């Protein structure tokens, strides 16, 4: 089902339900997920994800229903039941009502590629076959996933707001591994694009194989502070957590955010520009719908400019409560998440380095890190202290050159303090798929950080 059909359905439901104040968000995702591991395509799935989010207000009392049933009669009943519930719940302080038809909207960006939307299981297998073969021919074990997804969105309110959009995302992740599941050398490659035909499958597979080969016979390095060059995949793991703890109005109001009470102050280094840029028109960087779950048109929000905290992300209610305007940052509920407020397209500004090698060239003795694993940013959110480990490629850099593999290391450091020690970033940036964003990707360059603190290392797996 396409966005315009969802919009028509939404209008019909609102006209029939008889409730005065309703917001109805309809979303249908059709995903083809070809997941492979141990060199075999073991989980190939067609996943349907229909979702309707109904909110009904009675004055400032608001109730919500989330349902997978998008039949017209089921939605009409969901609206009516939500209305009955709304009458019984407490008032929402400063609830501003639902989005009205006269609120501004921009031109809808084209983010739909028919080739992705129409990709069949046979096509996914055909595209993956050379990937599996290349890794196998290299004497390594492959794992990863090729996904083709089409997502239709529509939002309609009784205040006259009506929006729809169609987007596609194709994403590819590949590992080349020395062993299937017991550790050892590993390399990773990944890419996302709205058009499956534009995915760099061969190039990223080759990268995974190359990194895996480089990762053999790792050195066990002592904990301590090291200059590091982080690939975009590693940086975005950190940005995911920064987005979760720092820039959303609820965390700022709660005073758990490092930005709380510090807007206008320097919170990190001058090299850092961090922007929520959901309307980015670069086809390799921009994904998702141009409006949020409340129908507010998304906009570019500079969150950090030259290291200074500039802005916070709001939905309509938090904006009203905190004397601001919505930034179009209301998020859909998802399994395990109430939705709330958050970034969907966080982008770290690039620097001037022409390549990762140039960044590495500026390190006397340090580490080149391809990816991070299991980062957690809840240690001390006010300072954005995070911990995590390297994964799928960690290398010693000596006198400006990558010299040998290093076993995985654990870091614990403040991201904001670390970013204050950034003295180099690549000009080129990469969209890295993330499950933390409605849109599906955050964007980052490769980054050089001085004195990143490592407090431990993984050990070789014990034998029986």
């Amino acid at each position, binding site marked *: 089902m396409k966005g315009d059909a969802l919009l028509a359905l939404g209008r019909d439901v609102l006209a029939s339900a008889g409730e005065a104040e309703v917001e109805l968000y309809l979303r249908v995702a059709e995903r083809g997920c*070809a*997941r492979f*591991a*141990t060199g*075999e395509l*073991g*989980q*190939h*799935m*067609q*996943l*349907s*994800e229909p979702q309707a989010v109904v909110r009904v207000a009675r004055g400032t009392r608001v*109730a919500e*229903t*989330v*349902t*997978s*049933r*998008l039949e017209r009669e089921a939605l009409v009943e969901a609206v009516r*039941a939500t209305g009955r*519930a709304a009458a*019984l719940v*407490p008032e929402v*302080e400063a609830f501003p009502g639902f989005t009205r038809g006269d609120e501004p909207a921009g031109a809808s960006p084209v983010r739909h590629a028919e080739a992705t939307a129409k990709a069949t*299981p*046979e096509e996914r297998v055909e595209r993956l*076959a050379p990937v599996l073969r290349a890794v196998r021919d290299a004497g390594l074990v492959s*794992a990863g*996933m090729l996904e083709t997804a089409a997502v239709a969105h529509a939002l309609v309110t009784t205040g006259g707001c009506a929006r729809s959009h169609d987007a596609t995302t194709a994403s590819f992740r590949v590992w080349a*591994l020395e*062993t299937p*599941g*017991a550790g050892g050398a590993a390399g990773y490659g990944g890419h996302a694009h709205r058009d499956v035909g534009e995915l760099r499958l061969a190039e990223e597979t080759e990268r995974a194989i190359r990194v895996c080969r480089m990762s053999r016979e790792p050195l066990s390095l002592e904990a301590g502070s090291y200059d590091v060059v982080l690939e975009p995949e590693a940086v975005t793991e950190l940005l995911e957590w920064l987005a979760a703890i720092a820039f959303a109005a*609820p965390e700022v109001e*709660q*005073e*758990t955010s490092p930005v709380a009470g510090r807007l206008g102050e320097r919170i990190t280094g001058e090299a850092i520009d961090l922007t929520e840029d959901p309307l980015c028109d670069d086809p390799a960087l921009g994904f998702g719908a141009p409006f949020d779950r409340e129908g507010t048109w998304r906009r570019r929000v500079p969150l950090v400019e030259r290291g200074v905290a500039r802005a916070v992300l709001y939905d309509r209610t938090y904006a009203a409560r905190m004397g601001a305007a919505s930034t179009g940052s209301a998020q859909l509920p998802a*399994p*395990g998440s*109430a939705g709330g407020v958050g970034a969907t397209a966080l982008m770290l500004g690039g620097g001037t380095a022409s390549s990762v090698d140039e960044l590495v060239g500026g390190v006397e003795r340090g580490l080149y890190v391809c990816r991070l694993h*299991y980062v*957690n940013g*809840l*240690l*001390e959110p*006010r300072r954005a*202290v995070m*911990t*995590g*480990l390297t*994964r799928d490629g960690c290398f010693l850099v000596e006198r400006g050159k990558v010299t040998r593999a290093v076993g*995985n290391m654990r870091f*614990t450091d403040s991201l904001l303090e670390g970013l204050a020690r950034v003295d180099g970033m690549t000009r080129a940036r990469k969209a890295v798929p993330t499950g933390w964003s409605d849109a599906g990707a955050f964007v980052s360059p490769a980054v050089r950080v001085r004195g990143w603190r490592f*407090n*431990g290392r*993984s*050990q070789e*797996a*014990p034998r029986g």
Partner: protein
Amino acid sequence: MLDAALHSALAWLRKQPDVRYAEVRLVDEGSERLRLRDGRPEQVTVEASRGVGIRVLGSKTWGFACSADTSEGALLAAAARAVAIARASSGVAHRPVVFPEQPASRGTYETPLAVDPFTISTESKLSALDGPVRALREGDPRLRSAEAWMDWTRQKKRLLTTEGTDVAQTFTFGACGMHVFASSSEGLSQRRSYPTWQGGDGFQAGWERVGLLDLAGNVDRVKDEALALLTAPPCPAGTRTVLLESSQVALQIHESCGHPTELDRALGTEISLAGGSFMQPDMLGKLRYGSSLVTLVADATAPGGNGTFGWDDEGVPAGKRALVEQGLFVDYLSSRETAAALGRASTGTMRAEAWNRTPIIRMVNVSLEPGSAGTLEDLVASTDDGLLVATDKSWSIDDLRLNFQFSCEIAWEIRHGKRTRILRDPFYTGITPRFWGSCDAICDARDWRLWGVTTCGKGDPMQLMHVGHGASPARFRDVAVGSAS
């Protein structure tokens, strides 16, 4: 109608010459999610989800498709898509999946309830949260923000397989808790939670569980500890004896025993989310995982457990078995396919988050058997110098589940058998078998409690699952500790 549609899809699948096995799984789920923050509703949501997932084993490999439309036509179409996917994928398969037969299962399972939470009004539920959440902020302006929450889920699941399995299960899951954030003028923010961190407070029971929690009766202690943390010193770095309270032992089990004993991880089929496992098949019966006090069991039959059921999503009956016996690694959480790779029988742990996800190996209730060290207070009294660490705040572990680091909300220093000063932002870190090998005391059954993790993430795309962990407080020697401050 629905029953006929399910059987019709199954009958069609049985007729496909290259379908060796198929399952048709109906999931009909309803939830209520309530959250109050600082006296106002942050979430009042009712959720409903219904659909059918169809998994097919073709001549060589698997296909999965699903449908929210449960009409006969839609289910036949979904079955055809699953078969088409399995056929398409067979072109790159090198060896056919080995999938041992399983005797047909029949029957029903239902969560035992004293009071059905879906018979309690939303107003009553909100009222149970409103008093505590308001009280949490009273009396001191540094008590900056408080939240209380309550989630209820009823999941009805029907599984039909080509082997003749026909089981119907009805689960009632709940979760309830509260926390408060205290802030100081120096920019510190400290959280204190009850009964544990949000997401670790799940259970399979009815409304009666909320009364047993006694949120109101714990408000003053939670507030006092949150305020005390604002002026407490950071946990000094060093090597210490560490006592973990019960819910922290539960999370330690989850990350460092539950996940690495998942056989799909060990065999390498979960790489694309979270990695492999240091617990490899050639170590079965040989790997010294922990001290001789450490026995960890996977028990899908534990009453009230978040990971309790009648049958898994492959029709294998729930069971109880040791994963680690007196410190020795002896078994895995497995599926029919993965267990066959080791010449073993499935331990019955395949579950899917929803109708539109394929089953994968999930923890059940993976629990530490109680020891003989008395109660927590007895354990403190028998410790000359150490730290008592409580309530998880952050969690991280490497891709083989060896190097872990957890930070917690609070620690108490123990001197000469007594709790002394409070320390803030404690973390402890270690290597899994070395850490469990240092366990020298486990409290007895009086302080054993079955905790429930509500959002265990695994799979790709990510699936969240209800799992359980029972634990008593336990003591570990020579643990590296520090502070995030």
